[in-house]
């Protein structure tokens, strides 16, 4: 029975990785830019969710506006508002940091450095503004545990896994079946010819950032509900792990992100089941190294050919 429990946990972890990895992969697929700040956008999402939830249910720690909404209603408001606000953070980042560089036609390296630094600014800005005390996310839904043949299934785990699969299906639909998705794929193919076809480049890029950051916000809420301790550096490591997931799956491909996310979840839980849990990161990063070594483009990735 333990094995089924582990599989369930792996699916839950994998869902978080997949949700964040989708954001990496969307932005990379369109802009060929690794948005290193994405893990921190996830962290910002979790904090936004925290402040919204606390303010709505009137607990201490938020802004005291005298609201005492019931937890279920608070959750119903928190989810969409957090996704919108987190998307705004992502778009702001794109407009202030990445777009000026793109307009100048700067070397990709400079954009990558900017992204890394933007992540550090978000992390440490949070630390400086809110202090090092950890925040406790309020319980918005009652935990229900179903015991199915010895496997403890909580409602939250089911919600997380279902959310990841729905988001995947939705994004896959958007990217492969809609006009906007077609424009996204077009931009990744040729950034210079696409504006000539009458496609608004900046709008499409903003839509990409909205989708990616919105999903990071969703992941932030779900993560905060599952592991209710928030701290400024929570986004860094999980962001890197999600990034590994995206790369392992083949960055730029939606299916790759979801497969990579679940694969990483299974690897981590598998390692913890056999070895001491401190070795988890070692294995996760070693797997990344080996996969990149053997298959530099990831599982679903296609090698880019450069013309001489």
């Amino acid at each position, binding site marked *: 029975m333990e094995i089924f429990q582990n599989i369930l946990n792996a699916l839950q972890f994998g869902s978080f990785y997949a949700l964040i990895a989708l954001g990496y992969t969307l932005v990379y697929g369109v802009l060929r830019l690794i948005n290193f700040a994405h893990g921190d956008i996830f962290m910002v999402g979790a904090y936004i969710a925290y402040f919204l939830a606390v303010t709505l249910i009137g607990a201490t720690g938020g802004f005291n506006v005298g609201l005492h909404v019931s937890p279920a209603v608070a959750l119903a408001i928190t989810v969409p508002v957090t996704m919108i606000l987190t998307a705004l953070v992502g778009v702001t980042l794109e407009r202030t940091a990445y777009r000026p560089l793109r307009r100048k036609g700067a070397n*990709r390296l400079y954009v990558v450095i900017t992204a890394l630094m933007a992540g550090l600014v978000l992390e440490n800005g949070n630390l400086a503004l809110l202090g090092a005390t950890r925040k406790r996310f309020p319980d918005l839904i009652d935990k229900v545990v179903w015991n199915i043949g010895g496997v403890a299934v909580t409602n939250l785990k089911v919600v997380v896994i279902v959310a990841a699969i729905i988001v995947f299906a939705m994004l896959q639909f958007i990217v492969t079946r809609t006009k906007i998705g077609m424009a996204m794929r077009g931009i990744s193919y040729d950034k210079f010819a696409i504006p000539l076809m009458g496609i608004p480049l900046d709008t499409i890029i903003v839509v990409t950032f909205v989708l990616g950051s919105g999903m990071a916000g969703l992941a932030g809420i779900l993560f905060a509900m599952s592991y209710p301790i928030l701290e400024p550096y929570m986004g860094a490591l999980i962001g890197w792990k999600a990034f590994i997931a995206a790369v392992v799956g083949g960055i730029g491909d939606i299916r790759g992100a979801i497969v990579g996310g679940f694969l990483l979840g299974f690897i981590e839980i598998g390692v913890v089941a056999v070895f001491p849990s401190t070795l988890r990161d070692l294995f996760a990063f070693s797997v990344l190294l080996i996969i990149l070594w053997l298959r530099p483009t990831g599982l679903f990735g296609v090698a880019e050919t450069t013309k001489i």
Partner: protein
Amino acid sequence: MQKKVFTIGLFACIVALVALAQFHLLDDYYLSVIMFMGVNVILAASLNLVNGYMGEFSCGHGGFMCVGAYVSSLCTVLMFSKNQMLGAPLLPPQLAFIGLPIALFIGSMAAAVAGLVVAIPSFKTRGDYLAIITLAANYIVISAINNMEFVGGPRGFMGMSATVRDMENMIDLPWMLIFVLLGMVFTIWILRRFVSSTLGKGVPAICQDEIAAEIMSVDTNHMKLIAFMLSSGLAGLAGGLYAHVLGYVNPQSFDIMRSTEVMVMVYLGGMGSLSGAAIAAVSYTVLMEALRFLDVWKWVVIPLLLILLMQFRPEGLMGNRELSDFFPKLRKYYSFK
């Protein structure tokens, strides 16, 4: 004769600094800032070989520094100090003068071997993916050390100060300052010789165009191997010196933050400029000390600084030029390229 002026002046400066420290004209705070400056110069100059001259994006320099720091510390602790896990000192304290350089050398070699982890995948991958590999290498090193109980795991490792004490008991001089300054001069010297040599010309050639370089008979894989191993080996030297200056190391001090710091120095100084890297490392260290009052905000200001740098002057302070391009008269005394 004029070319010698520079070398003589340099060593005169070192002697002057050591004398100042010896007669306690510099207080310990300034002394330690100078030593960290030296370590930072080594780090920035060595990363500049890969990130600047070769145009790759390596963001795991802290990992190699960590390998160097731990291996050389382990050597000196084995040789000269009593440790619960590793037993009594193997060698008499008189040998500390030979022991420390050997330990630093072994640390550098170990770091260079660790550089292989990045060098070999770099044959096939480039750009973003290679950046990830270097980053993963950094995390792997930190994670591995965290799991090694005999070097203290996450609690850190100490006992290196016994070696420095041994040396100071024998001859009373600020030995770590001397070693750091010599290490710094050695690093700059070896990097300048390498980059301006016929063999080393292959490194900027890879930066310009890898395929073209290969057609022009540059053995790119070989060049990458040399560049990565040299760079990580020198980072290991910096790590060894850092460990012996502090007398204590812990894995967290070599994480991604450290790597970012070194990257900031390289991009601040300008890619492909040795004097730029040195100037940036010195001014960055001074800036860090000056901004100490900002406390937590320091880590907001520094990344912001780099973002602004990328927006408005992406080539850094010096670009790929050396000091002599700004002050042509210096060329009389020293050939920078």
